[in-house]
């Protein structure tokens, strides 16, 4: 992107919305910012309509703050709670259909590589568990089989939240939810393991209760997908609204689940990705800061 595009035409300074002026004057484009810089710059996300206490909203805020190349990143989303938030994100983003995000991202990434062979254009998929592990699993896995150079991030809120709390493949076993009136009969789908087997060069699970680590994981996943192979990040962000938790308790619930060993922070880096990341000075510096 030419950063010069993001400027206000002379004479329009007074009439532009304050948020836009802030973005132009103090936004993250072209700067190497991360989670630890939050609060010092205008974020890529403006007011959003997600529920109070939504861990997914927090996860998205942290992801957006961690983009290594926000001025040249295109996000492909899918149907779900996150699709309500994307209109407020200052990165071009596509909402196509439910579950087809990795297929759309495949076409987009290949098109951008054709048009900008000498420029880094990161394509990032961000979708919920319904889109990733249920309706879209075929297309998610096939993009990994094909070694598409895209990063897939699943926002695992353990439920179809936007449609009112139906069981998903990521709901915990035994959870009584809409469409699982007697409790879910099978455990959470082990997508990180599937991702590794399917050819992802970098796989991680993380939660927004560990913000700096989340930032590091997202950054590493995007860098690996530039050169080495597909990457997958699963972010544990259970839905307070449908699980009927007080908004203020969500992060504590995540920490409790981590203590109980139900949610585990994990990272898999292929040897090739490991060598690649080790060679990137910028990653080392950033990781040290975290």
């Amino acid at each position, binding site marked *: 992107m030419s950063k010069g595009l993001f400027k206000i035409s002379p004479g329009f300074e007074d009439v532009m919305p304050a948020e836009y002026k802030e973005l132009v004057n103090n936004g993250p484009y072209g700067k190497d910012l991360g989670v630890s810089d939050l609060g010092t710059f205008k974020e890529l996300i403006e007011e959003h309509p997600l529920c109070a206490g939504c861990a997914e909203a927090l996860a998205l805020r942290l992801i957006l703050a961690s983009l290594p190349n926000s001025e040249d990143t295109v996000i492909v989303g899918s149907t779900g709670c996150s699709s309500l938030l994307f209109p407020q*994100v200052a990165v*071009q983003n596509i909402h*196509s259909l439910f579950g087809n995000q990795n297929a759309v991202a495949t*076409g987009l990434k*290949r*098109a951008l590589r054709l048009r900008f062979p000498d420029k880094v254009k990161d394509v990032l998929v961000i979708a919920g568990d319904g889109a990733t592990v249920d309706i879209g699993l075929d297309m998610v896995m*096939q993009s990994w089989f094909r070694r598409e150079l895209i990063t897939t991030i699943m926002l695992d809120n353990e439920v179809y939240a936007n449609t009112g709390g139906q069981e998903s493949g990521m709901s915990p076993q035994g959870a009584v939810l809409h469409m699982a009136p007697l409790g879910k009969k099978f455990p959470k789908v082990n997508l990180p393991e599937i991702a590794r087997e399917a050819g992802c060069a970098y796989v991680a699970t993380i939660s927004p209760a560990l913000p700096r680590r989340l930032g590091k994981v997202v950054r590493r996943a995007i860098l690996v997908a530039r050169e080495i192979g597909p990457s997958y990040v699963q972010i544990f962000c259970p839905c307070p609204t449908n699980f009927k938790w007080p908004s203020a308790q969500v992060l504590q619930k995540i920490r409790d689940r981590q203590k109980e060993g139900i949610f585990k922070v994990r990272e898999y880096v292929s040897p090739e990705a490991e060598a690649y990341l080790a060679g990137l000075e910028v990653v080392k510096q950033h990781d040290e800061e975290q």
Partner: protein
Amino acid sequence: MTTQQVVAPEYLFFEAERERQFITGSEAVREAIKRANVDMAISYPITPQSESMHLVGDIYAQGYLKEYFRGESEFAVMSAVAGAAMGGVRVFTATAGPGTLRAFEVFPTWAGARLPVVCAFMTRGINSPLTIQPDTIEMAFLLDTGILMFHAESAQDLYDMILKAFVIAEQTDVHIPVGVFTDGFFVTHTREEVATAPADLKLPPYNPYSAPVPVMDMENVPVRQMRDPFVMKSNFISYAAHASWQQEILAAQERARKHVRRYLGGLLEAEHPEAAVLVVAAGTAVSQGREAVAAARREGLEVGLVKLKSLRPFPREELRMLGRQARALIVPEFNRVGWLAREIKSVVEDTTKVIDAPRVFGGMTMPPELILAQIRRCYA
């Protein structure tokens, strides 16, 4: 890598010297794509379409395209095609029958996102019971998706319409997808003489910045979600934005009329349009109609033939005028539901003039005698 010279569409279509090749419909697709300067093609097998995308793969290997791969299903392919088009490249794919229906959710999003995708549909019956036979019923389902729809009678039409489809789809005032339809097997797997422009000429490249909506490459402002007004919220402005956007897609179809007239020579073609009885058809039903009309005229019956080339936009005014002076419009079709007769009834002033027969389906051929029988009935 092949070397080709970029020429103006008008030169490629109307002026360049043509050579005649004895080829199948599938090979005509290959010849069109060779000259279309396509950046990317994405394939998935389904009979009777597969062969055409095999051949596109072959010319990718020869350097005529920059990117080609097989997707995992028709839905995934149409989705990947959408992503590629949003990323600003010229993209082509093809499908047929059940594949069309598996991918169906994507077609209205192509139109809604104003993607100038060109897709060839080699029409085939819809299951069940299982069939691979020709049948145009899938076209009935696609009529209201917002895409432009051209119907090729022959391999020559298929070659011409695919090439011209890119130019029509990419006009700034149109910029919506085009489906080029042909009757599976009857055209795809039969051989005829097709006149093609030299293979060392090609269309100018697609310019994504000519689109009326932003290309998703982070090279342009404003930063946008999707390429259209994204209206998930419940408020009046959202409703109004969505409603006006739907109207805008229809308006883009309407604005395509002038380009279709220019490049296809009209939305329809008529032989003996002054006749009292007209056979009105699209696709290979036109060929069967032509045989029947010739036989009827040998019997001294005054009959004309109307070939519909564009179904979206629909030649509304043209058919209304023809319907005014004719006594009967006979509509032969290769499908059970008679969707074309319904369309024609929706525009002529006197619907009793429209004879929605003969119809064959399930892969059966249409003997011209069946059409001739309808013509004779008009004169009985």
